[in-house]
């Protein structure tokens, strides 16, 4: 086992030299990345298994700041997976980042936060990848490649223990038979008692138990037909949402304290079949996948000790994806022209139940309290609260059936003219969404001064809406090879123009508000009362939001130098992104119980990304830095004009630096000692559209020591060494403000085995 730093940020080594910790074979990259990375006119970050393990990267969230301008804050639960990249992102619904595991697109963002078991390589393609990847790759694509039993045969295992009684264990085995059948399987388990305490119960509110399973089989069915089957599954059960109420007047942050149960459980299964037909003239690849996701979230939606209201959301989702990729081989291939064409189709069905239950305090405060406060004393008949609802608690039921389907055709050509490489491509994407909905509520109300009996009133809202759109996603890039065949030196400059989008959809979480609105209006109409100002009623049709689109303009350069044992690689790029129909999560004003996504206007993002790696013998240093200035250019919500303000939640700067030294012993038993220190910086983050709340720079140093024996490693790692206190999330609910604090100082000790 080597501990050579193998993270390659933007400037990769030539592909034939890409080795990982497992063996000396080339690590395959994404099926669509037909060019060697050094010939790719786009910024790419690649992290290999060795570095993933050394840095303690267990989930995509841990890649934050390791990839410049990537920010995946660790808050809420595994369902959350808010992703911000280059100034854009969202807290809910569709992500700005496409997520692929072994070339299979993960269609539900709820399954983005996974335990990374035997991930051999992470490719992060920054900037819009719409031409090859289509929907939701507006700011980039994160592609994970798992260990292939064809490439590696052996046994791997690991056991770790750390802060908050966090235990993780994994074991995997990979074999290849004489008949060419390669089979691998792995299992991982992680438990944590949790880092946060709910002061209402006195118990940790974020315990976690997760199980990950993967089985992978590969075989040449014929000499020209390669078959792969990858079955992966994950199950987890956890608490979470350690939100703390913030009192703006006193700037006081209260303890996490809520009375209703919060929890998230998930089972996701993916079965993928990959076929590759190699003919004389071409290669045709097929990737078919079935994805199933079953999850349940229970939420104390007011996050206070009071019994206001709760949300229980249950999703049962199934999805099918199919992709074909055609590439030329010797017969069709030209020296100056290479290309790939593809077709993609998917269908996803989600049956969701999301009832909001109003409880005693919610009914008395949110509904009756405000209503009774507005009843004049002279007509209240001596009652403090003349209007009453019989139920102590009542649900607003919401059932949804959401179909999402799409199809795409794409082509990309790679044209070489001397030192010039021109990449031109276009994709035609169609996507449709339909949603059937049924919301209902039944209450019994009574006006005490005049009514002797409770009067029932039922509201039902059901129907079906649809949303369809077509996107054309072009791309043009140019790369100029500065070094030619310079020995040990590779240098290039590039420029790229590309378009990306993330899908539209429906706001299911606003339906409880719609029904409350209907209930009150219907009740009044039943009584013959009509408001002058009925306001702008939100209807099912108006909950549909459109795709968000970006154009990305970028120039950059790459340099890779290897001389005298020294290795330096670096890259830098400058980008400008123009965004239309930006999707922003809005909390309707006042004591709203819902939230919704809306296309609120336009914005732009300018920034830069710099990566560098230096290595000499056992010493290595790497850094990645991202700067983003992302602002609304046109956003007026009717009450405030936010044009010119920073887009919230996305950091201005991300920085990650790491120094490592490996001291070789060359002994039969102890082979080396590796010591590394790293530091990440994230900030500033603006928490609201008005830019009134700002999170300052967050600095988190870490360190790790690895003692490398012949058959195993002993590891010790610490994160957030300064125990820095910082916020990772802010939001408002029913007029209250909340923050979540980041995780405190953590340590992990463990042993890994590789036979």
């Amino acid at each position, binding site marked *: 086992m080597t501990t050579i730093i193998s993270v390659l940020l933007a400037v990769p080594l030539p592909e034939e030299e890409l080795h990982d910790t497992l063996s000396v074979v080339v690590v395959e990259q994404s099926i669509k990345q037909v060019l060697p990375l050094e010939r790719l006119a786009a910024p790419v970050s690649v992290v290999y298994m060795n570095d993933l393990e050394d840095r303690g990267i267990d989930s995509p969230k841990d890649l934050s700041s390791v990839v410049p301008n990537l920010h995946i804050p660790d808050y809420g639960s595994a369902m959350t997976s808010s992703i911000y990249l280059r100034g854009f992102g969202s807290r809910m619904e569709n992500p700005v980042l496409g997520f692929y595991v072994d070339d299979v697109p993960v269609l539900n963002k709820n399954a983005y936060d996974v335990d990374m078991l035997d991930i051999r390589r992470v490719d992060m393609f920054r900037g819009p990848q719409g031409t090859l990847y289509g929907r939701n790759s507006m700011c980039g694509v994160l592609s994970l490649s798992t260990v292939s039993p064809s490439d590696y045969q052996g046994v791997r295992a690991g056991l770790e223990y750390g802060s908050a009684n966090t235990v993780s264990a994994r074991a995997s085995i990979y074999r290849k038979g004489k008949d060419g059948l390669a089979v691998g399987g792995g299992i991982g388990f992680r438990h944590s008692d949790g880092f946060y305490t709910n002061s209402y119960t006195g118990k940790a509110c974020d315990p976690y138990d997760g199980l990950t399973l993967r089985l992978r089989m590969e075989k040449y069915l014929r000499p020209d037909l390669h078959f792969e089957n990858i079955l992966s599954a994950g199950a987890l059960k956890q608490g979470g949402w350690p939100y703390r109420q913030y009192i703006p007047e006193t700037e006081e942050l209260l303890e996490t304290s809520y009375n209703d149960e919060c929890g998230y459980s998930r089972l996701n299964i993916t079965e993928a079949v990959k076929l590759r037909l190699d003919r004389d003239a071409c290669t045709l690849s097929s990737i078919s996948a079935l994805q199933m996701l079953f999850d349940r979230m229970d939420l104390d939606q007011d996050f206070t000790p009071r019994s206001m209201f709760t949300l229980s959301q249950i999703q049962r989702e199934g999805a099918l994806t199919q992709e074909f990729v055609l590439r030329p081989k010797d017969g069709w291939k030209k020296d100056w022209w290479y290309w790939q064409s593809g077709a993609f189709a998917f269908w996803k069905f989600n049956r969701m139940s999301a009832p909001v239950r109003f409880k005693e305090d919610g009914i008395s405060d*949110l*509904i009756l309290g*405000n*209503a*009774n*406060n*507005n*009843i*004049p004393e*002279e*007509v*209240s*008949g001596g009652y403090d609260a*003349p*209007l009453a609802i019989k139920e102590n608690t009542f649900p607003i039921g919401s059932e949804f059936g959401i179909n999402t389907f799409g199809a795409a055709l794409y082509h990309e050509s790679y044209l070489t003219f001397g030192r010039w490489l021109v990449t031109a491509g276009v994709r035609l994407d169609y996507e449709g969404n339909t949603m059937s909905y049924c919301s209902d509520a039944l209450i019994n109300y009574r*006006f005490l*001064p*005049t*009514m002797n009996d409770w*009067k029932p009133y039922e509201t039902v809202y059901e129907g079906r809406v649809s949303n369809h759109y077509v996107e054309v996603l072009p791309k043009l890039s140019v790369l100029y090879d500065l070094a030619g065949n310079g020995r040990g030196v590779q240098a290039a400059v590039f420029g790229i123009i590309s378009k990306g989008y993330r899908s539209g959809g429906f706001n299911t979480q606003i339906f409880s*508000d719609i029904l*409350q*609105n209907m209930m*009150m*209006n219907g*009740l*009044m109409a039943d*009584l*013959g*009362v*009509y*408001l*002058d100002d*009925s*306001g702008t009623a*939100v209807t099912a049709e108006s909950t549909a939001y459109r795709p968000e689109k970006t154009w990305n303009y970028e120039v950059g350069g790459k340099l890779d130098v290897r001389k005298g044992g020294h290795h330096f690689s670096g890259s830098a790029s400058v980008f400008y992104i123009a965004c239309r129909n930006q999707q922003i999560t809005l909390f*309707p*004003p*006042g*004591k*709203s*119980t*819902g939230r919704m996504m809306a296309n609120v206007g336009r914005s732009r993002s300018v920034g830069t990304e710099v990566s560098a790696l230096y290595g000499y013998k056992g010493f290595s240093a790497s850094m990645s830095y991202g700067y983003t200035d992302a602002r609304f250019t046109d956003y007026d919500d009717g009450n405030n004009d936010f044009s010119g303000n920073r887009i919230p939640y996305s950091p201005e700067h991300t920085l990650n630096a790491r120094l490592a030294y490996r001291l070789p012993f060359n002994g039969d038993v102890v082979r080396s000692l590796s010591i590394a220190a790293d530091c990440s910086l994230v900030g500033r983050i603006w928490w609201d559209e008005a830019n009134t709340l700002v999170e300052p720079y967050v600095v988190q140093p870490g360190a790790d020591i690895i003692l490398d024996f012949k058959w195993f490693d002993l590891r010790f790692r610490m994160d957030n060494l300064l125990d820095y206190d910082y916020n990772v999330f802010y939001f408002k609910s*029913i007029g209250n403000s909340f923050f979540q604090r980041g995780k405190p100082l953590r340590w992990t000790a463990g042993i890994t085995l590789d036979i």
Partner: protein
Amino acid sequence: MLNNIISRFAAAASVIVLMASCEKAPSVITEDSPEFSGKMTVLYEGEPFDQNGIKVLVELNADKTMLDIKMMKVKFVPAMPVRIDVTILEVPVTEEADGIWSFYGDGITPWAMGGPYDGYRVDELRGTVSDSTLEFSLDFYNTKKKQAYPTSYSGDR
């Protein structure tokens, strides 16, 4: 959004409390009753307050001695935050000519929201109704403020 809902609910509640009860009004008016549309003018602090497009339903009782009048979505004063349906029950009526009926009533408690609305009283109600036109005038008398709001209506079918 919930602010809107709550304010609506509060407005509804405010109106509810003005009602004596929530029982169903004993009116002969149905959805099929003749509907007139026209202008209602309320004299408020000496200034006319006009409301156009006000719908009024009228129905004679079985023996054609009484008339019910239901005014839809009306205000008594411009500052009212809501519009309400108001029904005036059992107004004595006489046939003046073929197809023309005149009516007069005084001291009538109107009905709204299913019950007698004793915050107001209808005085000096007088008017005529035919197949095509409806005209009447009345005083809405605020029993607490002890103030009358002269009101007139003219509409056709």
